[in-house]
C-alpha cells in the first residue's frame, strides 16, 4: 500500500520534471504552455525586449520599466524635486525648475512622447508636459536625465502636449484652460469676451533638440484636451480635441456638456510656417523661462524670454478648421496611414472616425456648417469615415498595432476594445482593473507600430494588491496582442499615476546609453580634475570647497577655518572613469539633500553651518569595500575666528 503510493508519487514527480524540461522541443505537450508567467519571465541577468516610459502623473516624474517583465529600471526626476539624486537641490539642476513664477518644485506630468524620425520613434529624446505651471521637458535617452524645460506663455494647464510631428519638427502644447491673453485682472464673467485658448508649436533643433516656442495660434476660449499630429498623407497637420465649446466658466460638469458635438481643431502647421515667414504674426509681450542643461559643463542655465509670436486665425485663412465631433471628445488619435482621425467622445458610447482625404475635399468644396471667430466648421457628414459602435462606455484613447487593428480604452466600462480600422468592426474586448485611462502599444501612435504588447494604464487598483492604508497605488496591466484574442499577462503597481506611456524596442536605446562622463570634457566652472588641485577658497563669507572623490576617499577630507554664517559650496568632482561608480555626499545639518555624482561629473551642494563644532560628511552611495571609510570632517568656528583656513587628506598640510 505504502509502496504503491510512493511509486505513484515517483511517477508524478517524474512527470513534473519532464514537463518542466527546457522549452522548445515540444511546447504544446507541456501542461504549462498556457501559463502566462512564461511570457513575462525575463531570467535574471537577461534584458527586457522593450523600454516603457510611464509618466508619474502628479508625482511630476517619469519612470522607466522593462517589458514584458514590468521591472522598474529608473525614476527620472523631471518637474519635481528628487532628494535621492539631489535633483533640484544641487546648484547645477536648480535652474531647470525656474519659471516666471520663480522656482517651482513640483508639477503634474501627463504625456511622455518619444522623438520621431519619419514618423517612427528614434530613441533620441523623450518629452513630457507639466500641466500646472505650463511647461514641456526634454529628457536625453543617452543619459536618461532631464536636459531642458521650457515654460509656455499664454497658457493655463498644458494638457494637450507634448505630441510630436513626424520628424520632431515641433512638439505641440495646447492649453487646457483658456485664460486672458495677455493675462490681466478681469471679471471671470467676461470669459467669452476676454479669454482665449493658445496652442503652442515648439520647434526642436534636429541636432541638439533645443526647444523654442516658434509660434502660437490663438483660438476661442474652449478647453483644448489632447492632440496628435498627422503622418504620411496628413503630415503637416496637427489635430487638437476641444471640449467646453459652450465656453462655460463655472460648473463645467454640467455646463460643458450641453452641445451634441464639440470639435477637433485641425491646424495646418505648414500653412502657419508660411504665415510666420510672411510676417503675419503679432509679437505679444509676455514672460517665460527656457532652461537648458549642458552635459559638458554639468550645469543648467536659465533664460527669460519676453515676447512670443502669435497667429490670429481670422487673419490667416486656411490655418484652422473645426471638425464637429460628438461628444466632449477626449483623445484624438491618427492611424498609422495618416488617413483616419479617431475622436473619442468621452460622454458618448460611439467613436467618430474622420477621414483626412474627405476633410481636404470638404475644405475644397467649402462644405462648411458655420464659422466661429473666422474658423470654418466643416460639415460632419462630409468628413465622417465611419462610426465604431463599441458597446463600451466613455471612450478615451486609441492606439494601433502593425496589422490594421485599433485598440480603444473605455474609462466607464473599464475595458479595452479591439476594432478593425476601415470596417469599424469590433473584434475583441478585454477588462481592465480598473478605470483605464490611456493605453500604450510600443510605437502605437506612430507610423510603424512595433505591436506585440499593450499596456493599460489604470487609475484605480482597489482590491488588486495588498492594502497600504487609504492611499493605493495606480497600476499598469500588460496584455499580449500578437494573437486574435487579447490576453492579460501581468499587472504591476507604478510609481505615481502612469497617466500615459511610450514604448520602444530596447535595441533603439540601449546601444547609446552613456556609461560615464569623460573627465577631460568636464567644463564645469568649479571642476577639480585631479586630487592635487583640490583646495578651499574663501571670498568674504563665501567658501568654495574644490573636492574630489575616488574609491574610497574625499580630497580634502579634513577642513578647518569655516565659520558660522558662511555659505559653503562643496563643488565635488567624481574622478572615477568607470561605469556604475557614482559617489554620494551627505554633510550633517544640510538643509537641502545629498549629492549623487556620476563618474566624471561635478555637482555642488550649498551648506550653511549654523553652529560651532566639527561636522562629519560621508559618501552615501555604497562604492567599495571601504565605502564605510569614505568620510571626512569640517570644523566650524565662530564668526570672526582666527582659526586659519586649512585642508588636507592623509597628512596635515
Amino acid at each position, binding site marked *: 500500500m505504502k509502496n504503491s503510493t510512493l511509486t505513484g508519487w515517483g511517477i508524478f514527480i517524474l512527470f513534473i520534471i519532464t514537463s518542466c524540461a527546457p522549452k522548445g522541443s515540444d511546447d504544446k505537450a507541456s501542461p504549462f504552455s498556457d501559463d502566462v508567467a512564461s511570457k513575462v519571465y525575463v531570467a535574471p541577468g537577461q534584458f527586457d525586449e522593450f523600454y516603457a516610459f510611464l509618466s508619474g502623473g502628479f508625482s511630476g516624474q517619469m519612470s522607466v520599466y522593462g517589458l514584458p517583465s514590468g521591472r522598474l529600471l529608473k525614476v527620472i526626476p523631471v518637474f519635481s524635486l528628487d532628494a535621492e539624486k539631489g535633483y533640484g537641490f544641487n546648484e547645477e539642476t536648480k535652474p531647470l525648475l525656474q519659471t516666471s513664477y520663480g522656482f517651482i518644485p513640483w508639477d503634474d506630468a501627463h504625456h511622455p512622447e518619444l522623438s520621431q524620425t519619419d514618423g517612427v520613434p528614434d530613441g533620441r529624446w523623450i518629452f513630457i508636459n507639466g500641466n500646472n505651471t505650463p511647461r514641456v521637458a526634454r529628457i536625453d535617452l543617452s543619459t536618461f536625465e532631464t536636459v531642458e524645460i521650457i515654460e509656455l506663455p499664454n497658457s493655463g494647464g498644458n494638457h494637450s502636449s507634448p505630441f510630436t510631428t513626424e520628424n520632431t519638427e515641433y512638439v505641440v502644447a495646447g492649453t487646457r484652460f483658456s485664460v486672458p491673453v495677455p493675462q490681466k485682472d478681469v471679471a471671470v464673467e467676461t470669459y467669452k469676451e476676454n479669454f482665449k485658448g493658445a496652442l503652442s508649436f515648439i520647434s526642436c533643433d534636429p541636432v541638439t533638440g533645443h526647444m523654442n516656442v516658434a509660434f502660437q495660434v490663438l483660438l476661442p476660449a474652449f478647453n483644448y484636451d489632447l492632440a496628435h499630429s498627422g503622418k504620411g498623407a496628413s503630415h503637416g497637420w496637427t489635430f487638437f480635441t476641444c471640449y467646453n465649446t459652450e465656453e462655460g466658466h463655472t460648473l463645467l460638469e454640467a455646463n460643458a456638456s450641453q452641445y451634441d458635438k464639440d470639435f477637433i481643431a485641425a491646424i495646418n502647421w505648414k500653412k502657419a510656417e508660411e504665415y510666420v515667414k510672411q510676417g503675419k504674426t503679432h509679437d505679444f509681450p509676455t514672460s517665460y523661462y527656457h532652461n537648458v542643461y549642458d552635459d559638458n559643463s554639468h550645469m543648467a542655465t536659465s533664460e527669460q524670454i519676453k515676447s512670443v509670436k502669435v497667429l490670429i486665425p481670422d487673419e490667416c485663412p486656411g490655418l484652422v478648421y473645426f471638425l464637429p465631433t460628438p461628444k466632449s471628445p477626449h483623445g484624438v488619435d491618427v492611424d498609422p496611414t495618416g488617413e483616419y482621425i479617431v475622436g473619442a467622445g468621452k460622454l458618448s458610447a460611439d467613436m467618430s472616425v474622420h477621414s483626412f482625404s474627405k476633410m481636404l475635399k470638404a475644405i475644397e468644396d467649402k462644405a462648411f456648417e458655420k464659422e466661429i471667430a473666422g474658423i470654418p466648421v466643416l460639415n460632419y457628414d462630409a468628413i465622417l469615415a465611419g462610426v465604431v459602435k463599441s458597446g463600451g462606455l466613455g471612450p478615451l484613447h486609441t492606439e494601433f498595432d502593425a496589422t490594421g487593428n485599433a485598440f480603444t480604452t473605455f474609462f466607464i466600462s473599464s475595458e479595452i476594445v479591439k476594432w478593425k480600422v476601415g470596417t469599424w468592426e469590433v473584434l475583441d474586448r478585454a477588462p481592465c482593473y480598473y478605470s483605464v485611462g490611456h493605453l500604450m502599444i510600443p510605437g502605437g501612435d506612430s507610423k510603424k507600430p512595433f505591436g506585440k504588447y499593450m499596456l493599460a494604464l489604470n487609475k484605480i487598483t482597489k482590491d488588486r494588491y495588498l492594502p497600504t492604508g487609504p492611499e493605493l497605488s495606480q497600476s499598469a496591466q500588460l496584455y499580449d496582442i500578437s494573437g486574435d484574442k487579447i490576453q492579460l499577462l501581468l499587472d504591476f503597481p507604478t510609481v505615481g499615476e502612469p497617466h500615459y506611456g511610450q514604448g520602444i524596442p530596447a535595441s533603439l536605446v540601449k546601444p547609446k546609453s552613456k556609461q560615464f562622463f569623460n573627465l577631460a570634457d568636464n567644463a564645469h566652472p568649479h571642476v577639480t580634475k*585631479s586630487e592635487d588641485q583640490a583646495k578651499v577658497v574663501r571670498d568674504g563669507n563665501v567658501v568654495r570647497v574644490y573636492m574630489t572623490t*575616488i574609491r574610497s576617499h574625499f580630497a580634502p577630507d579634513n577642513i578647518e577655518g569655516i565659520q558660522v554664517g558662511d555659505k559653503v559650496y562643496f563643488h565635488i568632482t567624481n574622478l572615477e572613469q*568607470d561605469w556604475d561608480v557614482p559617489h554620494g555626499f551627505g554633510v550633517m545639518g544640510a538643509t537641502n539633500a545629498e549629492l549623487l555624482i556620476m563618474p566624471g561629473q561635478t555637482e555642488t551642494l550649498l551648506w550653511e553651518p549654523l553652529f560651532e563644532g566639527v561636522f562629519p560628511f560621508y559618501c552615501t552611495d555604497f562604492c567599495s*569595500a571601504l565605502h564605510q571609510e569614505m568620510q571626512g570632517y569640517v570644523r566650524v568656528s565662530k564668526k570672526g575666528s582666527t582659526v586659519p583656513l586649512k585642508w588636507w587628506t592623509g597628512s596635515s598640510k
Partner: protein
Amino acid sequence: MKNQFKIMSTGAIVIAMLLNGCGGSSEQKQASEEIKTEASSTVNSNDPMNNKGIGPVKSITLGTLDQAMADEGQKIFQEKCSACHKPEEKFIGPAPKGIMDRRSPEWIINMILSPDKMVKEDPIAKQLLMDYNLAPMANQNLTEEQARKILEYFRTLK
C-alpha cells in the same frame, strides 16, 4: 619587505593564462615600441617578472627611454592615478617607484587597463588587494597608448 616576500611566494601559483576573449578592449595604438598581442606561452615560474598578468597586452619590447613620452605619461598619471598613488611612497595603493624591477611591463599595463579582471584572476594582484585592505584599483578606462605612456614614466622612477 614582508609584502615583497608574500607576493613572491604567491607568485609561484601562476595560473595558466586564458588568453581568449581578453584582448581588443581598447583601440590598439602603437607607441614608440611595438606592443604585440599574439598569445605568449604559458608562464610557470616563481619570478614575478615572468608574470605578464591578464589583459589585452601580451608582449612589450622596451627600447631606449623616450623622455617626451615619459613626460606625457607623468601628466596622465597625475590626472588619472594620483588620487591613490604617490610616485615615491605608499598611499592608497603602492608607489610605482622601482616597479620596473618588481613587475613585468606587460603586467603593469594589464593592471592599469583591466584591474577588475586582474584582482579576480591574477595571483599577484589578488595578493595586493589583500595587502592594501581591499581598496580596489579603479578602472580609469585609459587607452593602451595612455597606459604605455605611464609605463614610460614609471621607467624614470628608479
